[in-house]
């Protein structure tokens, strides 16, 4: 059954059907085969609703809206001018700043999709202007955003912690090492890319010019203050911080900078709604499809035939990595964690693996899977927001996947990448 469904989905995808159709047809065929007919299709609708329902998803349209207002107005431009005044003269400086901004924003907001929009939409035009290729920019944005999974707060780690009975606080700390390592690799790659493609640099600015740029960015610097201060200060949940950014952006652009009138606000809200719908229908269809996979116990069937009990701890970590990587290529990461973690729990225990290490390995795979074709929420978001064809959004991905996979392998052989900080913090 699994093979039939996957084949149909891939064919429909390649033929150029709207992306929702492979997912919907996959779920549809699944329901048809599971229940010998059309009797239970209502549950498919139920699961599509369940997919778009989680409260944390509300942050996505809110950050899209805020980013959209900032980009149409002056806030985003002023912030980027400020960053450029410091890094514009360095080879790859803008690309490294973009990666770092994605990591930081993703870390705080907890939403990779929101990161793609909030950081990607103002920075992409600037990178294009600076001379980077679009395929590189898009891959950089999508993949850097996924570092968010590893850096606290991370909803994936919370769920893993609950299902596997592992300390969430320890998981949070363990994710930081690999997260920063990935950021470092991306930064090195960005610099090499900039040198090899001879991306021009800007003239070095004086401290006076920098001070002026900072001064011009004073108002927009309220955004990082709202997000970082608001969330860590216990004022907002990430979703609420997103809404606060909307409010602040509206205030700045309509009252302070006067760069947006109310008609512009209306248009912006409409375009935000459109992007949200295009992405969320895929999230919903993906949830219905995940339900089929989970109900039919397909992972259990596949994993049951591998004989994982015979392997050593390195072997088990490899199997786990591959299982989560493949799972997240097709299915929503949260569902993958909920379904697969209990299946692996006994073997993890029997070979004596540190559950915190396993959690970090899994979270990393989840991050990679979400940025990897064919199905990935962040890819969908990038397509919807930047209006670039699918193939172009994923074209620049291979070098990034290669870097991410090497970090995965490194993590398996050198667990200290994740556990060093944890051991330090918890005095183990």
């Amino acid at each position, binding site marked *: 059954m699994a093979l039939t469904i996957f084949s149909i989905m891939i064919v429909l995808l390649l033929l150029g059907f709207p992306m929702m159709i492979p997912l919907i047809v996959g779920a549809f065929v699944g329901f048809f085969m599971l229940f010998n007919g059309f009797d239970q299709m209502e549950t498919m609708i*139920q699961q599509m609703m369940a997919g778009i329902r989680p409260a944390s998803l509300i942050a996505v349209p809110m950050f899209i809206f805020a980013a959209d207002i900032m980009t149409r107005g002056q806030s985003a431009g002023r912030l980027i001018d400020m960053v450029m005044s410091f890094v514009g003269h360095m080879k790859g400086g803008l690309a490294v700043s973009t990666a770092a901004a994605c990591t930081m924003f993703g870390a705080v907001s907890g939403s990779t999709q929101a990161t793609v929009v909030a950081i990607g939409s103002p920075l992409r035009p600037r990178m294009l202007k600076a001379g980077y290729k679009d395929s590189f920019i898009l891959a950089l944005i999508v993949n850097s955003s996924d570092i968010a999974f590893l850096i606290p707060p991370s909803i994936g780690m*919370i*769920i893993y912690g609950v299902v596997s009975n592992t300390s969430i*606080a320890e998981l949070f700390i363990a994710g930081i090492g690999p997260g920063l390592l990935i950021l470092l690799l991306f930064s090195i790659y960005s610099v090499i890319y900039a040198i090899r493609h001879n991306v021009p640099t800007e003239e070095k600015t004086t401290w006076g010019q920098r001070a002026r740029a900072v001064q011009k960015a004073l108002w927009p610097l309220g955004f990082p203050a709202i997000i970082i201060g608001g969330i860590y200060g216990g004022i907002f949940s990430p979703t609420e911080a997103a809404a606060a950014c909307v409010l602040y952006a509206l205030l700045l652009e309509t009252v302070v900078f006067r760069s947006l009138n109310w008609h512009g606000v209306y248009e912006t809200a409409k375009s935000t709604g459109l992007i949200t719908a295009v992405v969320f229908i895929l999230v919903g269809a993906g949830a219905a499809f995940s*339900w089929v996979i989970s109900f039919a116990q397909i992972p259990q069937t596949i994993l049951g035939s591998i004989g994982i009990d015979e392997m050593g701890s390195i072997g088990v970590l490899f199997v786990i990595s591959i299982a989560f990587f493949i799972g997240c290529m097709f299915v929503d990461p949260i*569902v993958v964690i909920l379904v697969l973690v209990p299946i692996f729990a006994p073997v993890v225990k029997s070979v004596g693996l540190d559950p915190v290490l396993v959690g970090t390995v899994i979270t990393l795979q989840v991050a990679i899977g979400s940025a990897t074709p064919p199905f990935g929420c962040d890819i969908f978001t990038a397509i919807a927001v930047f209006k670039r064809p699918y193939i172009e959004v994923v074209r620049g991905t291979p070098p990034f996947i290669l870097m991410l996979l090497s970090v995965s392998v490194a993590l398996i052989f050198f667990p200290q990448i994740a556990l060093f900080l944890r051991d330090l913090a918890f005095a183990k």
Partner: protein
Amino acid sequence: DTWRYAFEEAMDEVQGKYAQKFKEVIEANSDHEIQLFPYGTLGESADIMEQAQAGILQFVDQSPGFTGALIPEAQVFFVPYLLPDNEEELFEFFRTSKAVNEMFPKLYAEQGLELLTMFPEGEVGITTQEPISSPEDFDQVKVRVMTNPLLVESYKAFGATPTPLPWGEVYGALQTGIIQGQENPTFYILSNKLYEVSEHLTYIGHNNFTTAVMANQDFYQGLSDADKEVVQKATDEAFEYILEYQKGQTQASIDGIKEAKPDYTITVLEDEKRQPFRDAAAQVEEAFIEMTGDSGKGLLEQFKADLEAVKK
């Protein structure tokens, strides 16, 4: 046949333990196989309930608190200080109560569900950042509650600021300080690591978390007498098993928390200090009757009669 059974908790939490025992008895006494679907694998609580009603799932475990939208009377389990905190009385109540064993099955049947059993999961404790010993201590304390009117009413009565928050955001919100408290049974506080982001756990004795196991009614009615008997046998054996399991379970959870965080304070509020909370809670009972009308009132009266009967 393969029967499917979904529940709201993870495999090694109370509902999961019950389900595993249920599965074990069914499979030992019949040719049927049971597939278990823990929390989230087929959707949230409301989703699996609907799937059981649709006949996709044969068995489902949903706590009456979540059933409130479907069967308002089920919210009686949210009325504070109704259930006894004496374990033997509590267990005997669930074994013998007419309200639980005769009145509720009728209400569930109207929704196409065969109520197999209800059982307690453990006393509800409240985690906070500062110690709690009176309603005054709750002043300005934001306590996360499920979006349920009676829970909201209860915490208002206790003097706290009830704050609704999606479950996924609770750990983070406790860490950053958006909220200062939340309530759950002890095993859940342990398994969800809520002690990591709080300093005090207080039992004011206001409730014991209750859950219910149901079968799809068409499925159940269509079973042969022999199969029905197997299901009843599994229900009863798992019920006694889970009561036995609970006896040491709260203490084991407390030990688990203490081991992970030795300086964590755990307080069982003594009886006279509970009195102000008990007094405040009277208004919640009125709110329940207002919400559920005569049907709820009748149920509540029967509930109290049943409780009186098991008092030692």
